[in-house]
């Protein structure tokens, strides 16, 4: 099933939830809608499901316009953040519901329903809970039942609204890997909404980054992480250091540090923001003859294979603390301690001169 979305817009009073959204979901892919709260991602998902109607624009399922199609005829599976299990029914009845409410002609026999539900409960590894009620289950179990219930009607699209948002960190991690595996086995076109960037990077085939009702960037996790389209995406995905500097005729300056910026050869003395990922910062005790920024160590977090340094810059090129990540070996080699003076130099940075900045962050 291909889902195409053309020029979709939606207002809630004076609030613009969706602003001219264009998007294509490829068959069998697991697409993530990522964004902060209020970015319109849940609204977009609900419009695809048919739970909300857009003010303008179209949603096409396999090139067929379904804007006016009733929810029932869209054949979507929907998983809610708070599960929305039927509290007055057993787990078995919950999963069987979608089959039982079918018109008599399309309804499978009682035996067939029994078989299908048992199969699904085995798929989510909870067949031993068939006779319980939703309130007797843990959050993680409930969400797996919600997924089984959605899959029972054999939907052509699976939509998940912050499926792991209400779960604790450990369960969330387990379910994430489980969902990825399930999707790899079933290959059902899936769209899920989340505000957790780690979750997205780990699970999704492609990511749609949303902000204020607009799409900021669409790409694979690698593309979005390595080549963010704009400052908003940069800041939203993963940790990042922000430096203030200037760009002039193909060169950029951050304090004493000079970097080549050939793509801005036309620039005439512009203010610019530079982003550097913590693992792209080189840390050294001496200058080594090359220009670098001076900083001192405020805090050291040395758990696991990566050592995380919190640094304070000497000048005001960076308003906030600077974070650098170095390997444990490098950390031992340098013999760093709190309060030490170091020199930092970005291995890779991305410049955004102020006039091209399209998503404001601060």
């Amino acid at each position, binding site marked *: 099933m291909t889902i195409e979305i053309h020029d979709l817009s939606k207002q809630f009073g004076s609030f613009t939830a969706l602003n001219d959204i264009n998007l294509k979901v490829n068959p069998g892919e697991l697409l993530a809608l990522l964004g902060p709260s209020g970015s319109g991602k849940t609204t977009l998902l609900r419009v695809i*499901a*048919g*739970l909300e109607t857009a003010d303008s624009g179209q949603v096409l399922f396999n090139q067929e316009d379904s804007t006016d199609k009733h*929810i*029932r005829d869209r054949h*979507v*599976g*929907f998983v*809610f953040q*708070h*599960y*929305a*299990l*039927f*509290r*007055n*029914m057993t787990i078995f009845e919950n999963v069987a*519901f*979608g089959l039982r*409410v*079918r018109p008599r002609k399309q309804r499978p026999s009682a035996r067939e329903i029994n078989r299908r539900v048992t199969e699904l409960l085995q798929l989510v590894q909870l067949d031993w809970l068939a006779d319980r009620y*939703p*309130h007797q289950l843990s*959050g993680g179990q*409930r969400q797996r039942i919600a997924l089984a*219930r*959605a899959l*029972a*009607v054999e939907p052509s699209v699976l939509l998940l609204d912050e499926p792991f948002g*209400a779960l604790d960190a450990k369960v969330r991690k387990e379910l994430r890997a489980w969902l990825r595996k399930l999707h790899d086995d079933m290959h059902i076109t899936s769209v899920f909404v989340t505000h957790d960037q780690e979750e997205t990077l780990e699970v999704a085939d492609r990511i749609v980054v949303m902000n204020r009702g607009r799409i900021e960037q669409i790409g694979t996790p690698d593309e979005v992480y390595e080549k963010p389209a704009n400052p908003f995406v940069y800041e939203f995905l993963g940790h990042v250091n922000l430096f203030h500097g200037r760009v002039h005729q193909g060169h950029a300056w951050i304090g004493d540090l000079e970097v080549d910026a050939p793509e801005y050869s036309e620039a005439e003395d512009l203010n610019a923001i530079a982003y550097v990922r913590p693992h792209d910062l080189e840390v050294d005790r001496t200058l080594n003859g090359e220009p670098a920024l001076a900083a001192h160590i405020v805090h050291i977090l040395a758990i696991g294979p990566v050592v995380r340094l919190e640094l304070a810059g000497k000048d005001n090129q960076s308003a906030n603390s600077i974070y650098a990540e170095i390997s444990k070996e490098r950390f031992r080699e340098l013999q760093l301690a709190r309060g030490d003076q170091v020199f930092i130099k970005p291995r890779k940075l991305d410049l955004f001169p102020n006039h091209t900045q399209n998503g404001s962050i601060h």
Partner: protein
Amino acid sequence: MTAIPLPQASPAPHKVVTQESPWARWILILLALSFLSLFLLLPLVAVFFEALRKGWEVYLAAITEPDALAAIRLTLIAAAIAVPLNLIFGIAAAWAIAKFEFRGKSILTSLIDLPFSVSPVVAGLIYVLIFGLQSWIGPWLREHDLSIIFAVPGIVLATIFVTVPFIARELIPLMQAQGSEEEEAAIILGANGWQTLWYITLPNIKWGLLYGTILCNARAMGEFGAVSVVSGHIRGLTNTLSLHVEILYNEYNFVAAFAVASLLALLALITLVLKTLVEARVAQQTSRGNHP
């Protein structure tokens, strides 16, 4: 293994700061109890005492004489029409208010409360003004030989009016707390409107619905003011139980008055017991499923 003494297990008589002194507690309890006995329990006992003062035979005769039976019948008819109608209206109104956003929602919510805030006598008078002979609809009614005021339809109308809020008021907060995600899930799974109502919404609100119905029924059978205005007090025809009590009392027929009143008191007691039983289930249904 040595046991580590828990702090609360120590017998040291330290003062619990969040509790009043025993004296204050006892005085408060005593005050509440004596108030309740004086104003509620005593009258209730008095009703049964007065009713049975001249023995069972007189009591039974008072509640089985034709006028009393007619009053019982009329009360049951009024309740049997008003309660189901309010059941349907209550569910519809609560569904609309709790699950949808629409213009004039707050007006509808206040309108439902109107019978609580308006004096029942005024409600009765409104019906007299609308359907009475002097009203603009009056001549038409007389032409077609229809009587609403001083007849059974008027009593049913007045009963419906005063009992409108009970079921809707009970269901709105319950439905709001439960949200509409379950209904959305049902519709996405292919259920139609009736299936969603029957399998999802109604089971989720059944205890609240029963609770509201019990209160609605109690009020429908016990209503006096509004019914009194539209009834016309025709013995054996337009007298409900509460109106019958008044008539008997005004005729100094105290034993009969109290005997009929005891039926209403009995109804109140049964309502109270049912209400207490159902209340616990309502609380359970509200909390269930709302917490992960």
